[in-house]
């Protein structure tokens, strides 16, 4: 059933990580990504990995969810791995046949890259798992708000995202209904060639668009009636405020970043 699709990957919870200010979470995620890219050896990467484990543990996100988030990027991981194995020829040669040459350096780099990708994906997934889409939208609007000065329509973009999030479930439900209705009129969505199946969608898409436009029109009217006149002079009910937890989390993250940099320096020496 299409109804079962969840929007975003939010996993509701009450952990410390869930309760962090979404703006802080955006910053922490950025710092974490920097951390992963600064690390140039396994030791630094290990520090990043420990940080991830630590955050993952206190977020209480089920392990299965984390593994699920890695699945779609397995092809990319394999591709990167093979590329690195084939094109890096430092260290001792382990195997050579025709133009193919596998070296210890190649294996090391490819392992390093794969671990880095895993850390990257898991870290960013942690952000979307612990932050509701609406909180993320809110955070992005506030973080980007200085850009209003250069005429970037930050409020409008955030409003559009909010409305999209609000209406996606409604439209999915509607798609389901229209498909059932056309099926009852003998429409066939499951068999036939690709072109025929694409054609079969016309009786679904047209009513869906017509209804989306009607909804948009009615929503605009309702918003106007409730005094909507753009972002100017608008206040918000929920004020985001940074608390002790946020600063503590920032402290820990910065500590890890410093650790990675220190590890880098020492391994160079």
């Amino acid at each position, binding site marked *: 059933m299409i109804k079962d699709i969840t929007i975003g990957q939010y996993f509701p919870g009450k952990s410390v990580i869930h309760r962090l200010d979404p703006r802080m979470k955006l910053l922490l995620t950025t710092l974490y990504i920097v951390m992963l890219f600064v690390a140039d050896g396994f030791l630094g990467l290990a520090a990043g990995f420990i940080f991830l484990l630590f955050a993952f543990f206190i977020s209480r996100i089920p392990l299965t969810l984390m593994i699920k988030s890695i699945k779609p990027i397995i092809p990319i991981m394999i591709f990167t791995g093979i590329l690195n194995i084939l094109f890096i020829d430092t260290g001792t040669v382990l195997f050579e046949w025709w133009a193919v040459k596998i070296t210890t350096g190649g294996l090391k780099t490819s392992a390093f890259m794969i671990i880095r990708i895993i850390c990257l994906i898991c870290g960013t997934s942690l952000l979307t798992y612990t932050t509701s889409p609406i909180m993320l939208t809110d955070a992005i609007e506030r973080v980007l708000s200085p850009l209003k000065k250069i005429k970037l329509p930050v409020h409008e973009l955030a409003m559009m995202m909010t409305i999209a999030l609000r209406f996606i479930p409604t439209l999915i439900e509607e798609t389901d209904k229209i498909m059932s209705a056309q099926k009852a009129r003998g429409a066939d969505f499951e068999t036939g060639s690709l072109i025929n199946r694409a054609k079969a969608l016309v009786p679904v898409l047209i009513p869906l668009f017509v209804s989306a436009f009607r909804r948009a029109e009615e929503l605009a009217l*309702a918003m106007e009636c*409730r*005094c909507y006149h753009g972002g100017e002079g608008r206040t918000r009910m929920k004020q985001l405020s940074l608390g002790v937890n946020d600063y503590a989390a920032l402290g820990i993250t910065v500590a890890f970043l410093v650790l990675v940099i220190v590890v880098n320096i020492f391994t160079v020496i």
Partner: protein
Amino acid sequence: MESNAGRIIEIKNVSFSYVNEVAEPPVKTQVISNLSLDINRGEFVAVLGHNGSGKSTLAKMINGINLPENGDVVVDGMNTKDESRLLDIRQTVGMVFQNPDNQIVATIVEEDVAFALENMGVEPKEIRRRVDEALKTVGMYEYREHAPHKLSGGQKQRIAIAGVIAMNPECIVLDEPTAMLDPNGRQEVMKTIKRLNEEQNITIVLITHYMDEAAQAKRVVVVDDGKIIIDDVPKKVFSQVELLKSRGLDVPQVTELAYRLRQDGIDIGSEIINEDECVSALLGLLKK
């Protein structure tokens, strides 16, 4: 706030027409013609009329969504043609529409109720207070953190009403708010509307084509073909069975029964609009 008696809405000789520009040549359809209507503070007025009678167009004129071609609409002393007062007018007259899905903006109930207040630039603490109060008034406080799309139709409609009463309006115009609801949802919404009128003295303009809902109002205005054809208390309105039927409207079953019995030569009153009245009238006849 001063809530002096007197008129909250004055509609003076207004006309309105839609122009279909797609048609060749453009077709102009007159929807409202030279209509006048005054509504007093604290009144509960039901506006009846079949689809296309102009009743929705009239509703949208009250808060300046539609501006009259001729004539004036004055809300609490403000003319809807005065653009500088538009936000004040919309705060004074809140609107609730038919489709509950298409008037909820946010993905969380309380955020949606806060929407109008955020637009008005109210202080965050005050927004919180008013949102909680509005949600309690409509009996949806426990649902404040829910996702609106998972609620029933009646609950969604109550959220929409909460979003309007958070603005502290003097008047609420509801355009067929129960048309898409099941009987339970309809009852929930009607109870909420009546409470707002009785306890908070909010003026209610209820546009509907359900006779049982109109019967709960204190005044019923029947619109047909862009004009007001009847404007009276429910009893007097429903007793005009023939006129209503000829305009594509219905009457409650008990009213219809009394009307038919009268036609058959039985001596039964012409102002029966609810069960109690019908039972006692019939008892009077049968126990003779």
